[in-house]
């Protein structure tokens, strides 16, 4: 299954903590997180992605969002929105910088 292969490639990339695919209504299609975390990520991040898209289009109606990256102290969340689906990837960029 091609979709599964692609998801596996992304899932096994260096530092990836988890991935999530949601549809345009925010319902979860695929997830590597546990139930509660999936729910939280799906609800909150689709809201954020929708808001981000609104911001881009209001600033310039000819423009549209292509990618969203949110960096926090511990992780980086990457959101690739599309008309029907949205892919969410959470990565820990420090996972290999353990020098302690």
């Amino acid at each position, binding site marked *: *299954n*091609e*979709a599964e292969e*692609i*998801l596996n*490639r*992304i899932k096994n*990339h*260096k*530092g*990836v903590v988890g991935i999530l*695919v949601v*549809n345009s209504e925010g*319902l*979860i*299609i*695929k*997830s590597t997180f546990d*139930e*509660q975390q*999936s*729910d939280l990520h799906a609800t909150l991040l689709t809201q954020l992605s929708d808001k981000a898209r609104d911001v881009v289009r209001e600033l310039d109606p000819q423009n549209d969002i*292509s*990618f969203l*990256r949110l*960096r926090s*102290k*511990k992780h*980086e969340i*990457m959101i*690739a929105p*599309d008309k*029907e*689906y949205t*892919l969410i*990837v959470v*990565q820990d*960029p*420090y996972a*290999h910088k*353990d020098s*302690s």
Partner: protein
Amino acid sequence: TATRAQSGLLERAGSAGVAVLATGGVASGPGPGRPGPLQDETLGVASVPSQWRAVQGIREETKSCQTASIATANASAQARNHVDAQVQTEAPVPVSVQPLSRYDVPRLAAFLRRVEAMVIRELNKNWQSHAFDGFEVNWTEQQQMVSCLYTLGYPPAQAQGLHVTGISWNSTGSVVACAYGRLDHGDWSTLKSFVCAWNLDRRGLSPRQPSAVVEVPSAVLCLAFHPTQPSHVAGGLYSGEVLVWDLSRPEDPLLWRTGLTDDTHTDPVSQVAWLPEPEHSHRFQVLSIATDGKVLLWRGVGAGQLQLTEGFALVMQQLPRSTKLKKHPRGETEVGATAVAFSSFDPRLFILGTEGGFPLKCSLAAGEAALTRMPSSVPLRAPAQFTFSPHGGPIYAVSCSPFHRNLFLSAGTDGHVHLYSMLQAPPLTSLQLSLKYLFAVRWSPVRPLVFAAASGEGDVQLFDLQKSSQKPTVLIKQTQDESPVYCLEFNSQQTQLLAAGDAQGTVKVWQLSTEFTEQGPREAEDLDLLAAEVAT
């Protein structure tokens, strides 16, 4: 006019020079027979009428006004029907999770093909990027030092020489309560004591005047606030009783008591804790432990009576033989329990600290009956599943890590803190923090690698295992005369606050520096590494 008078006088004098002078008084330019330009002249008076209103006079007119009369009328109203209704908040119901939805496989594959390259590129960029190295955002006001926010005390208790034996923060984090009693050896059976609470969020907080004071007929040795009810607090007494008070009712605060029955502890209660009931997780029971070897679970029923629902007894012969233990010198079979801590990951798993100095891993679900002849209305069970290597003396405090399911700390009279993993008997690390006793040890609720310990030398030691695993990062001197600090508790709602009580009857609320309240990016993982150092 002055000039005319002058000329008159001068003419009477009758001298020609004077006549010249007199004509010089008339204002005219120089000419034949007239004086030169630098002569004195007097001019006529010019006057300007005053513009001041007061001089001009006020123009007055009389006017009057009157509010129109207000129309009033009487009427009466009476509600004919009324309905009683009650409102009650309910404990939050766990949100049910939605199942995975159906999707169209080819379209999903097409979408993923479209985005894959971009996502992989961003993942790679992140992995190699140094853009954020050393970049830190400060959201909270940075506090560089540890400072004492409040020094609280109850003078009547201090006058009796009472020590602060227990401290607890309530569920909202705004009230700190302390129990007064005595922790040194002696017969304190007739000592009256107090439970005092201060509301730190209230304006006009008076450090010497608690917002609530409860007089207790016996020394209180431990205290615990209810996890959800902000005003309910349970305390264990020297007499072995367990009492629950409601601090919002000043005239009659006592809610429940165990009374002195066959079920009650026969030794002073070492620690009390609140546990959720197995079926109704929003209702709570009180757990009490004492040096008589019993671990008892109480529920409030009826008219203020705490009834025993479950009980456990620690018996020497039934302890798991995972560690070789010295035989008890007096040949007694009961093992005194001195401290208890519940796991944050498994609600039925708890660690007991004992008088023998060895921690015990116990479970509420243990089924084996205890071999004891102590009277009890419910059958007593043996809870211990694993025995850990002992300290050099009795344990006074245990604390389970809120971030790692296997790690816990214990501290006791040998002045050492042991970090144990539940997977092995010997401790992972043993740190000597004091030459005297250690009375309390607590993990930080926000920083996985930080814990605090209270020593008999009068200081509170803050350890950051990330900075140093040998010595404390911060040493706070609580008492000036080196009298011991007996108890300490972190505030889980306001995570920069730490309260500690000492032998002088004072409670000090310390504000921790920001390094103790903000988690670093990889701390939880570092804790995992520490826990993984299990000897094979």
